[in-house]
């Protein structure tokens, strides 16, 4: 906008319609080719894809570890692994799934790809920093993988002291790996905040910002504020082991409950880092596939911020039996219930969006509906755990394990899959088989419920978590749960199959296969290298389905800093169109 004002006279530019090119020959995937081009790219789309491949890889590893856990639990005591191996396997499953898959999955993989496109920007604010944050992620991953092979870690992903300060194994290597990884998360959040504030296309006011970006914005704020606290906690833990500084170890004069406060101060907001981007995706998908304006735009936008804020005040609900004061427990319980309200509002708003819509049951929409169901269960069981007296009974049992898998997997992973299937044509210019995709979705749904519903019952009956051995009354539940895990495994293999097939042989995608009004669909599939060949101009909200598609394809042709210098820029003497 400054360009227009820096000259003494007003510059007139003509706003015209730019229809996206269908089936483009040149796009971001085939311009800049070769391994070196990928490894040194500053293109947010390619960085997003590199993250996508990484998180998919870690999801696979984490998933394999889950199958190992469930297989071992087919019988009490040893089935095929020893207790100390089992303890390392569940530690690794948790750490990998949380730090290397869930936290980066939407922001770094899908978010990096889509955010500039949805803003009409050419890239994020700091593209080189973006690449750096990817490499920081890789280095953090290498440290963690090294930890596995040099002694392993058996502390649980929560690293509670004094056990973590005194046990053998490569705890320091893993805490350092996660410490390094935290910077990747922080820098991604930083990049997103600045991009959303400074790089919006003309006409994208805050009330026309896609809800996906409100979600990423709220997530980025949490990442900025919470991750540094994890960093200092892990640094202190590492120093505890290396130098014996004694802040957390009672044998050295420290307080192990203080560790828990520090750890959960990050790790509770972390779960909102994991879910809030998912909320953003669901808004996009439900509106697009209902072809209807989103119900309650500001309620959804502001509820993400409310969740981000209140989410920082509830960490003590992980510690009701740990030894904090009753007053603290009371306050934490109260705030925990409060944070459920904005979440509930979102669910109702999404349902209201479907009401009297024109619903097309494509795969992304199916995943969004699965999300609504599974996440609601996760949310209600969170209410159960927030109730003080009931939590005394359920804390540290399989009820908690079931709850967090329902919100993280039934919620976040389903939202991630919805987003993946939604933006797949934009990323790769290909469609996938609806039949196999829906079949896989159905199997995931069935397998997921088979795995985790019994765990609510087990937990209510007292089955503790992180148990290698268990008493006989739980065996049939464990076996049914394991069967479900294998069904899920099959579903994901099918998913990998049809997605890889799509890359090679999938039907070529149109620029806007879903008929969405959002800005990313007003450019070709796959996206061009610089996202748009013009500066988009926005005059409507992204969910205004009552407006014609042509009104979403407006823009100004501008030369950008020596790129496309031969482009036609038409300046007219007539009034600049008021937009």
């Amino acid at each position, binding site marked *: *906008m*400054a*360009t227009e004002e*820096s*000259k003494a006279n007003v510059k007139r530019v003509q706003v015209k319609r730019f229809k996206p090119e269908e089936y483009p020959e040149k796009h971001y995937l085939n311009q800049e080719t070769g391994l070196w081009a990928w490894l040194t790219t500053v293109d947010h789309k390619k960085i997003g894809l590199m993250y996508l491949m990484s998180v998919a890889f870690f999801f696979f590893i984490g998933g394999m570890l889950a199958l190992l856990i469930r297989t071992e639990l087919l019988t009490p005591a040893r089935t095929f692994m020893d207790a100390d191996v089992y303890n390392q396997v569940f530690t690794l499953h948790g750490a990998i799934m949380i730090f290397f898959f869930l936290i980066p999955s939407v922001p770094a993989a899908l978010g990096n790809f889509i955010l*500039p496109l949805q803003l009409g*920007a*050419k*890239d*994020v*604010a*700091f*593209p080189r*920093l973006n690449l750096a944050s990817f490499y920081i992620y890789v280095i953090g991953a290498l440290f963690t993988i090294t930890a596995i092979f040099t002694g392993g870690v058996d502390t649980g992903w929560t690293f509670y002291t004094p056990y973590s300060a005194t046990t053998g194994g490569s705890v320091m290597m893993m805490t350092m790996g996660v410490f390094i990884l935290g910077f990747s998360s*922080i820098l991604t*959040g*930083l*990049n997103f*905040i*600045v*991009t959303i*504030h*400074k*790089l919006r296309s003309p006409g994208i006011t805050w009330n026309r910002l896609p809800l996906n970006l409100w979600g990423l914005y709220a997530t980025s704020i949490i990442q*900025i*504020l*919470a*991750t*540094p*606290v994890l*960093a*200092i*906690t892990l*640094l*202190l833990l590492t*120093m*505890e082991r*290396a*130098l*014996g*500084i*004694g*802040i957390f170890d009672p044998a*050295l*004069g*420290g*307080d192990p409950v*203080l560790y828990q406060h*520090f750890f959960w101060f990050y790790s509770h907001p972390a779960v909102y880092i994991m879910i809030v981007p998912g909320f953003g995706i669901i808004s996009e998908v439900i509106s697009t596939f209902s072809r209807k304006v989103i119900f309650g735009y500001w309620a959804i936008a502001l509820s993400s911020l409310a969740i981000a804020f209140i989410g920082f005040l509830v960490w003590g609900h992980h510690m009701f039996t740990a030894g904090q004061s009753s007053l603290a427990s009371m306050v934490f319980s109260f705030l925990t219930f409060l944070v459920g309200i904005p979440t509930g509002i979102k669910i109702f708003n999404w349902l209201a969006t479907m009401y009297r819509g024109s619903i097309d049951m494509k795969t992304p929409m199916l995943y969004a509906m699965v999300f609504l169901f599974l996440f609601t269960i996760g949310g209600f069981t969170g209410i159960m755990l927030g109730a003080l007296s009931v939590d005394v009974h359920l804390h540290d049992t399989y009820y908690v394990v079931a709850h967090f898998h329902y919100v993280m997997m039934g919620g976040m992973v389903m939202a991630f899959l919805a987003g993946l299937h939604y933006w797949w044509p934009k990323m790769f210019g290909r469609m996938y088989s609806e039949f196999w995709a829906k079949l896989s979705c159905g199997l995931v749904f069935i397998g997921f419920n088979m795995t985790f519903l019994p765990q609510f019952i087990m937990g209510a009956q007292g089955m503790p978590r992180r148990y290698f051995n268990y008493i006989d009354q739980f065996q049939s539940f464990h076996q049914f749960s394991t069967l479900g895990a294998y069904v899920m495994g099959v579903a994901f293999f099918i998913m990998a199959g049809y997605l890889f097939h799509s890359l090679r042989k999938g039907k070529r995608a149109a620029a806007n296969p879903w008929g969405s009004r959002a800005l990313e669909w007003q450019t070709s599939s796959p996206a061009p290298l*610089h996202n748009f060949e013009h*500066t988009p101009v926005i005059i409507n909200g992204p969910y205004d389905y009552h407006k014609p598609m042509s009104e979403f394809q407006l823009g100004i042709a501008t030369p*950008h*800093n*020596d*790129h496309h210098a031969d482009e036609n820029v038409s300046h007219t003497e007539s009034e600049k169109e008021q937009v």
Partner: protein
Amino acid sequence: MSEPSVIEENKSHVLHHFIDSDQQFEASKLGMWVFLVTEILFFGGLFAAYIVYRAWYPDLYLQASEELNTFWGAVNTAVLIGSSLTVAMAIRSAQLNQIKGLITNLYITIGLALTFMVIKYFEYAHKFEIGILPGSYYSYEGIAHEKANIFFSIYYMMTGLHGIHVLIGIGLMIWLVVKAKKNVLHSGYYTPVEITGLYWHLVDVIWIFLFPLLYLID
């Protein structure tokens, strides 16, 4: 920010995804501010640990603080405040396109930062000599409190982490001198100086909190 003619000549610093130099400058500043917020949270954890232990063991803090040399701590405070002044002057020089002044002010800032580190070195060396070491290596008998090692663990973590940030700041300023000498920086583009200055001010502010909290307890 400056006259149009300067923009016309030196647009080479503007990256392809920004519309113009102003947008890039604003974005960079916002980015640095957001980063500084993360630094505050990072140190915040240590301040929280400090507060918790001080609430539990107020006597310990009173006694242990006497082992810290208030005089040299105060000197260091003045040194850092001075360096904040000189880095601000460096930014001013850049704004006025006085590249020689920019380099001089950067050199003075680096000098003051190094002075800070040297004084810190002597403080640490003295402590190591009498057995005040971090964590389980603590062997000093001079404080009659069983948790003395915890005070000093917190002391070393806070001042150590701060010291690392000072070293990083020195590195950044050396890099700025190199850039300035290559004539990359001018009144139309001095963003690196501005954001390094912001970083340096935070490093100073953190010390301004550390000094009274650690040295001035009585």
